[in-house]
């Protein structure tokens, strides 16, 4: 167990070191912060509820750009290592393929969480400057984004174990989009008369991640109250979902040939 951690950690830190050299990541971070800042301008066009607009836009920007980073860095995560053959020497050491994959996942997750923290600081700065209120619920909203990122990075990692970055991006974006629509789909399907349609909508809802369950921005922006369970359940859901994805990813990565 300790041995595993000792092997996973250098992979994770090295992944982080490599990821923060990625220029795309800085571009996305830059635009994320830019949009958070620009929210002040947009809010000034409106006569009412300027602070809410600032925070709505700010939280949405954080979510969108950090997911963008997660997907675009994550899709090449495993594929790149196999393609460049850096795995040959790494896996010839006593590290298992699963440990390697977990290290890569962890490293990328740390990278995107780091970006999220940077954007959250920018968000807090802009909110404070505009006189918008900040509360614990705002922290929870950021935490929600962090949970969503954990799921999205796991999705990208999974696809990266068996397909090219192009296809992995396509699949991961698909999962992300449907993941945000799945509640609506389920609700819509539930109204259908045809039991097949109802079952299908239910099935999609169960299988694909329900990413809206991690969205607390409305609570933060409107100052609505949150019960501990409102956060705890989504958190458990995220952990379970990530574990399931990583389980599949390690299985695929373990059985495949590394040519």
């Amino acid at each position, binding site marked *: 167990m300790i041995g595993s951690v*000792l092997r996973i950690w250098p992979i994770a830190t090295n992944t982080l070191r490599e990821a923060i050299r990625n220029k795309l990541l800085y571009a996305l971070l830059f635009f994320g912060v830019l949009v958070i800042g620009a929210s002040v301008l947009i809010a000034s066009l409106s006569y009412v509820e300027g602070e809410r607009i600032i925070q709505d836009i700010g939280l949405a920007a954080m979510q969108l750009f950090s997911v963008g980073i997660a997907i675009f860095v994550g899709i090449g995560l495993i594929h790149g290592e196999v393609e460049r053959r850096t795995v040959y020497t790494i896996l010839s050491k006593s590290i298992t393929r699963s440990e390697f994959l977990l290290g890569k996942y962890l490293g990328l997750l740390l990278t995107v969480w780091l970006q999220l923290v940077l954007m959250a600081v920018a968000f807090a700065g802009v909110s404070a400057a505009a006189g918008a209120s900040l509360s614990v619920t705002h922290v929870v909203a950021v935490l929600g984004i962090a949970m969503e990122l954990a799921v999205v990075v796991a999705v990208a990692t999974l696809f990266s174990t068996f397909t090219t970055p192009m296809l992995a991006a396509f699949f991961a974006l698909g999962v992300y989009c449907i993941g945000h629509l799945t509640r609506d789909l389920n609700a819509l399907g539930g109204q259908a008369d045809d039991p097949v349609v109802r079952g299908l909508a239910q099935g999609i809802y169960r299988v694909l991640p329900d990413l809206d369950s991690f969205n607390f921005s409305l609570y933060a922006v409107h100052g609505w109250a949150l019960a501990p369970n409102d956060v705890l359940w989504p958190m458990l859901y995220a952990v379970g979902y990530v574990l399931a994805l990583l389980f599949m990813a390690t299985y695929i990565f373990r059985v495949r040939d590394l040519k």
Partner: protein
Amino acid sequence: MKRGGQEGAMRELANERIKVEGLVKDFRPGLGLRSRRVLNEVSFSVREGEIYGFVGPNGAGKTTTLKILMGLIRPTAGQATILGHPVSESRFRQEVGFLPENPYFYSFLTAREILDFYARLSGISAADRKPKIAALLRDVGLEHAADARLKTFSKGMLQRVGIAQALIHDPSVVFLDEPMSGLDPIGRKEIRDIILKLRADGRTVFMNTHILTDVEMICDRVAIIVKGHIRYEGPIADLLRGDDMDSDVVLTRLPSDLGIRLQERYGSRVKGMGERIEVRVPDKDVNSLLTASLGAGAEVVSVTRNRHSLEHAFLSAVREGTASYPNEQKEMEKNP
């Protein structure tokens, strides 16, 4: 191969470090395409403390065999063990070092950093890492470039990094895929010395190569693989002692009647006439030729065994292999 009785066979078994039995690997070039057999019933074994040369022409299946041994790809059939462990396991790799063909590393790290990374993966404590890495960098001749990023390294320098990482955890079995590739003559000598030192320390070395002079210089035993079939396995000495070997004998003051008899027997293999003649004879004839010549009052100037022996053995193995399995691919396609 002849073995020295049952007792000898038992001793060999106990000392086996690498054992490969009936390895088969089929590659499918793409979805829906027919598979191609790249390894065909490959078997060999490597004993403790020897340098084992795995020799064959390009595309023979050397790297594929090594990838199977390293657990990177799975065999279609057959078994392989290292130190008694099936190659699909990971833990015993603590005891194994690997230099891949044309190694590639994270190019944003320096030589020292990448070695530190591999040392951590191998579970070497922080206190031991620093001196170990410094010593290895010296051994492979990279002291001057220790803190330069790998993306600035030449092919030969990367090869040296590759050798250093293969040895970082003091493995008892070391696998090297083309260890001399990309190295200048001095570098090759240095690497040869490193390999010889590994053997002197009691480690086992398995190396893929097609540089025969290196094999002749350092290997104890070899396997020759051609088109995925093992054509020879055993000590180099046996390979060179083949019955079809020739020697060049140079004689002077040979009585003319003996000269004529030689000409009758060996024909165009006799060069020169009268005072000094040179004749190329099979090894097994050398003794009788010398006895007859000396008896007749001739003088022996020199007897030279042909030196391209390994090359000769290699080339004939490749020729035979190519002749035996020319239609491998077609046969496979008929019954995939």
